């Protein structure tokens, strides 16, 4: 195993040797080693953000027929560093009546919530912060810190726009967590376990082929979870100024900002792990760094879809958004979960598993779509039943 | 290694604090929170007893999960009641909600 094939393992061994040479008790070695790997993963995530922001600006610019950042550095690569410097040097404003402690804690918690997810991301064979046996559930759990941070930020700002934004955000996040969790359970079912490493190693066929509908629903509800267009109601400028982080300036705003970008990419990576086979690809088992490369490619694929949707669709109305979640995504996800459980059990180990699951997914999606159009048509019909309301006429 | 008693002492303290909150706080939401403290103390005990006395039987964890379910139900209904009361009486102070007396 040379350094160029698996640098992480080599470095890890080095650190372990170093710790052993210090004659520490075994418990402390494990503790420190885990701490170092967690810090490493977190730093990787934070560094990634810098690149992500640049990438997003470039891609968004292309969608809008512009060039994007192109002055600082080659291809504008250094633009983000310049922005960082600006953010750090800006005045740090804290509103007079704000709840100072919570106000300062919120952005940190927001960033932590995203970084925590990276602890269980399997980058390549053997490259993982910690392989929890409840990995998928863990992702859902740390998501609740994100919600908490939004609520803290909105409330502590002592600003009605921020508070309203936080309310909206929390309602949206909690609602969309339901279909997201349900569809995350489908790969869990298929993999027969919640561990992230196991999730990747069992994907001889990518789960997107076994559960395409679940993949789509997961991606859609994840977009809502990160609050991007068309679900960016939590920071609808025309209605709420800037939502829950209206009062934040400087690096605190930067933290929210970074958390959002990193979260968007995290969604892509999670999508890649749950549905696109994670780091798997030709030769990845032997040369872990290739696996890392594959994972990043797949993650960017998901991230690109998120950006694409963002650049294409307009914002939707809040009641539509809620109705879409509760009346379409959630029932369909539930049906999918039940159906997948049944079919996967029935056809386990047979050649029919793939076609049966694929077919069931498509059927459920089609049925769900059909029923929802029927419902909306009926609603439209009922709406036209009402008498016309009096309209103010010019005198 | 941590002896069992540490967990039990911690849970006892947490329970006493929760009980105090439930008895003494005025705000109804705060009372509910205190009840959650007590439930958590119980959960610590359940899981600790499972781990130390009967790790082969999963019963302790199952009981903890039942407690989760009960807590969720309790908070949902409790908060609904509090909001309903607030709507009617514009207060959530437990000692002002005293119509049910002689």
């Amino acid at each position: 195993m040379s350094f160029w094939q698996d640098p992480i393992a080599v470095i890890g061994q080095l650190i372990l040797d170093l710790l052993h040479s210090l004659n520490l008790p075994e418990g402390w070695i494990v503790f420190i080693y885990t701490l170092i790997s967690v810090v490493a993963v977190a730093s990787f995530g934070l560094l990634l953000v810098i690149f992500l922001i640049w990438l997003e600006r470039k891609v968004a610019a292309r969608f809008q027929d512009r060039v994007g950042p192109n002055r600082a550095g080659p291809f504008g690569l250094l633009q983000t560093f310049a922005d960082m410097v600006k953010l750090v040097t800006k005045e740090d404003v804290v509103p007079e009546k704000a709840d100072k402690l919570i106000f300062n804690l919120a952005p940190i918690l927001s960033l932590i919530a995203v970084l925590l997810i990276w602890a269980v991301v399997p980058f390549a064979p053997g490259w993982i912060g910690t392989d929890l046996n409840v990995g998928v559930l863990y992702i859902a759990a740390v998501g609740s810190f994100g919600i908490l941070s939004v609520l803290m930020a909105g409330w502590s700002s002592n600003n009605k726009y921020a508070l309203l934004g936080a309310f909206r955000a929390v309602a949206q996040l909690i609602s969309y967590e339901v279909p997201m969790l349900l569809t995350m359970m489908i790969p869990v079912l298929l993999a027969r376990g919640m561990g992230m490493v196991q999730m990747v190693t069992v994907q001889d066929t990518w789960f997107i082929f076994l559960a395409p509908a679940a993949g789509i629903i997961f991606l859609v509800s994840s977009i809502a979870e990160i609050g991007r267009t068309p679900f960016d109601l939590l920071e609808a400028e025309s209605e709420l100024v800037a939502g829950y982080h209206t009062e934040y300036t400087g690096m605190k705003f930067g933290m929210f900002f970074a958390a959002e970008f990193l979260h968007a990419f995290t969604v892509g990576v999670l999508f890649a792990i749950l549905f696109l086979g994670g780091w798997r690809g030709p030769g990845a088992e032997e040369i872990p760094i290739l696996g890392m490369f594959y994972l990043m490619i797949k993650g960017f694929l998901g991230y690109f879809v998120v950006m694409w949707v963002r650049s294409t669709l307009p914002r939707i109305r809040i009641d539509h958004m809620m109705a879409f979640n509760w009346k379409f995504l959630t029932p369909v996800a539930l049906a999918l979960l039940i159906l997948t459980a049944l079919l996967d059990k029935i056809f386990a180990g047979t050649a029919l598993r793939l076609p049966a699951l694929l077919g069931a997914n498509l059927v459920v999606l089609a049925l769900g779509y059909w029923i929802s159009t029927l419902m909306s048509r009926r609603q439209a019909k009922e709406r036209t039943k009402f008498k016309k309301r009096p309209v103010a006429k010019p005198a | 290694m941590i002896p069992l008693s540490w967990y039990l002492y911690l849970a006892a303290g947490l329970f006493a604090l929760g009980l105090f909150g439930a008895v003494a706080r005025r705000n109804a939401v705060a009372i509910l929170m205190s009840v959650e403290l007590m439930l958590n103390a119980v959960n610590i005990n359940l899981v600790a007893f499972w781990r130390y006395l009967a790790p082969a039987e999963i019963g302790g964890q199952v009981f903890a999960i039942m407690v989760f379910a009960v807590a969720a139900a309790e908070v949902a209904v409790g908060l609904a009641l509090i909001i309903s009361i607030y709507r009617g009486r514009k207060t959530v102070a437990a000692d002002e909600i005293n119509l049910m007396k002689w």
Partner: protein
Amino acid sequence: MIETFGMPTASLVWLVPLPPLLAFFLILLFTRRNNALSHTVGVVAVAISWLLGNLVFLTALGVDHFGEHVIASTVNWLPLGEGFFSIGVLIDPLSAVTLFFVAWTVLMIFIYSIGYHNFGQPKGDHDHPGLPPHGAKDHGHTVPSIEPMYARFFAFIALFAFGMYTLVVSDNLLTLFVGWEIMGLCSYLLIGFWYAKPSARDAAKKAFMTTRIGDVFMLLGIVALYSATGTLNFREILYNAAVLETLANTPSLIAGLSLAGLIGILLFIGTVGKSAQWPLHVWLPDAMEGPTPVSAMIHAATMVSAGVYMVLRMFPLLSAGWHHGELTAAMTIMAFIGAFTALFAATIAVAQRDIKRVLAYSTISQLGYMIAALGIGAYVAAAFHLVTHAFFKALLFLGSGSVIHGVEHGVLHTGDHDTDPQDMFNMGGLKDKMPVTFWTFLIGGLALSGFPLLTSGFWSKDEILADAFAHGHMSVFIVLALAALLTAFYTARQITLTFLGKPRTKAAEHASENVRTMTVPLVILSVFAIAAGWVGIPEHFPAIGGLLPNWFHHFVGSTLLEHPSAVDFNIVPLLVSVLVALGGLGLGYLVYRNAGQTDPLRKALGPIYNLLENKYYFDELYERLFVKPSQAFSEAFSYRFLDGQVIDGLLHRAARGAMALGGLFRDKFEIPVIDGVADKTADITQTVGRVLRHIQTGQVQQYLLLVALVVFGGFFYYLLNILQ
């Protein structure tokens, strides 16, 4: 373990009955407002059952010596004192072929029902739930209108299918009985589907009550069997020579029968009710009040087949003690009732005008055939006829429904509502109007009358006759041959009157062919009506015997412990069956070739024709014999004497006595003692309450504090004990 696609087949068998049940609940609870969705749910459900059933059947075909290696699975159901009552599924050769034909006919009937109930047509102007649709005005024409309770029909018939599947796959008499009774309920619901028609209501009640008589005896039989053997599982009783031997040799206390004979007869009475054998046949012709798919369901695929299926299942028990010499008591009774019913119903069928009633009596007659065949021990032949009959009779019923539907179309078109669209004498010449219906009906009719060589009915009927002849049951042979002659005759009569010649009414002139959903099932069933016979051609048959192996005999015969041997070929029964089939058909055609609005037989037969037309006055006889006396008895004895005199008198006396006693108690005991105590108690309570109410502050936390204090008090006491 037998497997299909890597799954244990037994789990597939468990799943077979479930989709229709689900469909029933889905339709009733959710989709009943939406007709298209409802029938989609229903048809998809039975299609799944059909698929599963056929998968199971095909799997069974692939197993060597399937009779010994059956598909079976049991689960514990009712905990009894020691052990469990287990229920389960069992697919042996007999149930496999039954599953096969049930799956096909049921699916066809479902598809057919879509067209029959006028799906896609407008709503009728005066249609009312509980009445058949009257037609709707559409661009000035009257067109058929959709059934008002369309969705409900599919729900009921799906439940019906569930009952039948349950019955077929069960491995014990109890679940079989459950399926049996579900079908009883469904036939009640479906015969009375148009409940606003008094005749339909009466028919439903009649069917329910009549079959109930049989069911009570059957339940007695089941109980007797359980108490005798301690199990109801087929394989534990019927494939266990020791148990059968014991049952056959244990005398029962009734009429000198052995226990096996008694139980067999009791169970057979159930079949008499369900399969409409004489003397409990009266309900089946009246059941024609229901929609035609129901008739097909009841008469071909499911309910009456269920009766025969049950006796086929119980055949080892019925024949316990039979060593190919003397027939057992149960078998004798079956042979007698079956043969008699076969002839008796065939004679009635000759004089019926209603196209469906002819088929109804024909069904009774054919079931008599099967029962008689079983009675003389021709097990395989009976099963074979059950299968072929299911196909061609389903075909005939659906065909007759198609005819009626076509003529109704004519009735709507001409507006002449006095024409009865079911009366064959109002038809004629429909051959050109409804070609598909004609050809398929013709195939079904030929199969029913046993047209030689080609049709399935010939092979199965011939096998029964050959069996009767070979084993020397000459009386049965002659009666059945006569019945076959009559069968061919009335079939020819029916086809001639309906399809050949010239239209006798305006309505018949304007009849038209039906939609695809109705004709396609007919075509598919007619394929089976012909081809189903080819799997059972005797090996010693001249010329074509042995071209195809006699698969059916080997397959179904292996169900029994002792495989029945094929009978040797004999030319006499063959000649007889060819002769009666062709003769009956020819005669029928000749007589009815030029018939007008009246039956030419009426003149020829005179009073006998009246007798036949009125079904030997059986309904009237039952009315006199059972209904009227029981009414009179209830009126005179139960109501006037028992209720009015004895019970009321006793009650009045008792009441007066109680009043007197009550007065005494009130004055001497209640007022001074009880009231006094009660008042004192109330006073004390009030005083205590006045004191104690001070602790009810209305503040929930103070209560909590008190509770905690009490708990802590107990706790503290305990603590003191520890510390000491």
